């Protein structure tokens, strides 16, 4: 029997590779552990660990500037922390890259200290005028590849629900 989340992690990384993403800059969340382990094992992706999520945003923007596709992988707290960086690269530089953010703080999250993030994340993204989608099912992870294509001159954020990453958990 495979580890919880391994099948979804495989889907995520397969989609990134299909979209020719060559750099992933990440800051962990417990929900991301299988995805990050799979990225580590993927020879076609260079995994850069960052100390703050806006560093990941800057790295992805620099890759886009230089002609290489990159993804930011983080929790939605990283989206909130990176608001200025995301807006700056979206609207000032007009550089595109993918942001994969696990969506903490909704009804599927029993940790009370995550709740505020569920309250504000989509409102912040709407306010920043950054396009985003919420992925709820595992099969929707296959749309990651097309989301990379959409992120041409503006970041594209995919908010990954627990049910997409750990479908067997119900």
């Amino acid at each position, binding site marked *: 029997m495979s580890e919880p989340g391994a099948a979804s992690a495989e889907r995520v990384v397969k989609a990134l590779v299909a979209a020719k993403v060559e750099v992933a800059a990440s800051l962990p969340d417990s929900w991301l552990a299988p995805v990050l382990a799979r990225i580590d094992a993927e020879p076609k992706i260079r995994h850069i660990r*960052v100390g703050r999520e806006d560093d990941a945003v800057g*790295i992805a923007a*620099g890759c886009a*500037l230089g002609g290489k596709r990159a993804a930011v992988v983080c929790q939605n707290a990283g989206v909130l922390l990176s608001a200025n960086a995301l807006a700056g690269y979206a609207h000032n530089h007009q550089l595109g890259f993918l942001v994969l953010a696990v969506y903490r703080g909704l009804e599927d999250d029993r940790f009370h200290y995550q709740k505020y993030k569920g309250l504000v994340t989509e409102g912040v993204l709407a306010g920043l005028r950054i396009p985003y989608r919420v992925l709820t099912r595992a099969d929707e992870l296959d749309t990651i590849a097309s989301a990379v294509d959409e992120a041409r001159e503006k970041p594209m954020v995919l908010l990954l629900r627990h049910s997409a990453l750990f479908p067997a958990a119900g």
Partner: protein
Amino acid sequence: MRRAAAAATFKKHLAPDDIVVCGLGSTRRAWAEAGAPQLTYNGSDPMGTAPALALGLALAQPRRRIVLLEGDGDLTMNLGALVTLAGAAPSNLRIAVFINDRYETGGGQPLPNAGRVSYTQIAGAAGFPWTGEAHDEAQLDKLVPALLQRDGEPPSLGLLALHVDPEASPYPADPGPTTQYQDRAAFQKRLHG
């Protein structure tokens, strides 16, 4: 050391195919005024992200040397980026920090703990394999080549701190004829041919 003299020293030593990334404000303007031929990208805004942007560019362009001309104000906003850069350790990235201990463009306000911060010690403790510090033009003229390439050693990440005089460098009266995204498009056109 005057900012213009420091920028001229980099112009003297950089290779024609080096790519320069500039952080905010006065460092960016000093480099522009030097009239150097290197392909250059101005990283501002957002403030505090120029080191990460330069790292991304270095990863995307492994055959080109990327030189980040950074200000101490921009770097102080996100010193943790040095840990990320040291962890990634791209051999084609070099950083020069222009230190004047103040936010020049904002009106000359002092940086936090101005004058008592060692950026070379911070970078070294973060894991940078090479650091150097220049207090005058003669030192800078020796250390820029060392930053770019140490004889007999493989290329590696480095940070050079250089102390420049406080000089008024207010916002220009006119922001210029092009927007950031127009500059970005022009940069990419030159980069990719």
